[in-house]
């Protein structure tokens, strides 16, 4: 009884999705909507299969840009968070700038980057870095700052230096917040790469979509959209998995049991 309820609980989103897809397919057929306006999911799926070689190549490029940018952003975020939480004048000088930087419209920057760095991979990677850097840095800084000061005092009373305290106390305490930032970054990283490609590229899913859109192959555009959603979802799940592996103490629930 309880088990079957549990399965229904877990399957609910999948059932909802299937229902919506069915509605879409039904609507397209019932109203006889032209495929160059809106194809049904069955048509999208068949295009996905038909064009899978080409799509796979472009997916590889987009994934490479997104992952490279993501990793660079994490490394930069780590260094920035460490510096801003340990050097008071740096914090005072740069933290407000960090917040204000978020008001710059990214799409304009993306156009500029294409102008400056050409149509290669570099401008896309930079856009991904910019998109991912902020949530990771801010969450990490918040995490480090929310460490119990008494906990820090305890280690200071033992004669531990700043680096030891960071390594043993602050960094692990801040990891849950760090992972929250990582999850946000993972969600947007693929999209950021695609936006970069959209504005000017020779490869990648964004480029593929602009091309197909111009020739009204909406089914193939949607096939690319499907891949983008799937990749973003898998990337978030990968972050969740990494958190599960790296933070075993977080798995313990309220009752103190696993």
């Amino acid at each position, binding site marked *: 009884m309880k088990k079957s309820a549990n399965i229904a609980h877990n399957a609910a989103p999948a059932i909802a999705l299937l229902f919506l897809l069915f509605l879409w397919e039904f609507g397209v057929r019932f109203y006889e909507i032209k495929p160059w306006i809106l194809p049904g999911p069955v048509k999208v799926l068949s295009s996905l299969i038909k064009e899978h070689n080409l799509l796979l190549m472009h997916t590889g490029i987009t994934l490479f840009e997104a992952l490279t940018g993501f990793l660079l952003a994490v490394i930069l975020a780590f260094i920035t968070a460490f510096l801003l939480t340990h050097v008071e004048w740096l914090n005072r000088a740069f933290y407000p700038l960090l917040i204000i930087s978020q008001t710059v419209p990214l799409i304009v920057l993306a156009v500029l980057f294409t102008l400056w760095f050409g149509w290669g991979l570099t401008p896309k990677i930079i856009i991904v870095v910019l998109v991912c850097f902020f949530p990771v840095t801010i969450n990490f800084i918040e995490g480090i700052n929310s460490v119990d000061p008494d*906990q820090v005092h305890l280690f200071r*009373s*033992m004669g531990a230096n700043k680096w030891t305290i960071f390594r*043993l106390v602050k960094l692990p305490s801040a*990891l849950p917040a760090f992972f929250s930032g990582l999850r946000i970054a993972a969600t947007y990283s693929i999209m950021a790469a695609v936006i970069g490609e959209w504005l000017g590229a020779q490869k990648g899913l964004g480029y593929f979509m602009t091309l197909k859109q111009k020739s009204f192959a909406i089914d193939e555009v949607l096939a690319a959209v499907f891949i983008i959603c799937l990749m973003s979802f898998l990337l978030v799940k990968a972050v969740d998995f990494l958190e599960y592996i790296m933070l075993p103490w977080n798995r313990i629930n309220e009752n103190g049991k696993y």
Partner: protein
Amino acid sequence: MSKVQVIEICKTLDQLYTLDNISLTLNPQECVVILGPSGCGKSTLFNIISGLIKPDKGKIIIDGQDYTGKTGRVGYMQQKDLLLPFRTVLDNIALPLVVKGESLKQARNKAKSYLSEFGLVGFENYYPRQLSGGMRQRAALLRTYLFASDIMLLDEPFAALDAITRHKMQLWLINLRSQYNPSILFITHDIEEALLLGDRIYVFSPLPARIIGEFNVKGLSEPEKNKYKKKIIELL
């Protein structure tokens, strides 16, 4: 020679005159209790002895050497257990030794040999959240002891526990003292606890803290202790 000498310490915190000319001594293997009302500056004195903050005036002498404003010499246990939630009990206990420069493996081995004395056998691989309050305090106490087995500063270590657990822990601490003979400075605002655990008691006044009484209560009988209890109550 005395283990710790606190000499004429004065301290103002945020324009609040907190410690007024505090002088006291801790002799080897003694348990000295500091008794005073909440907020009178007892923890501030411990922060100064441990070297976390500097006094405005006065000196801290440990084993004849000037340790004013120097950390890393004494074991300091605060009211909260301050166990790291992301480390196992064993690692929490071992970490101070790592801070001192030992390898984690060495530190773990040393910590393991004390687990049974501290009633923690079988719980070494648990996370602090999975332990009861009393056990967490014992783990924190072991961590303090391993860092500096000769001088321990215990700041209201049992205040957060329920009455029954607290009493068990007090008896257990007495037993522990007879076995390891550390020198202990113990803060409490509980007169019964002070009389039960202390060899000597310093009574602190409300802010700014001054020493308003010193009582030698080592080895006294119950009725004699009751007399002191009345005296202390009158003082406070």
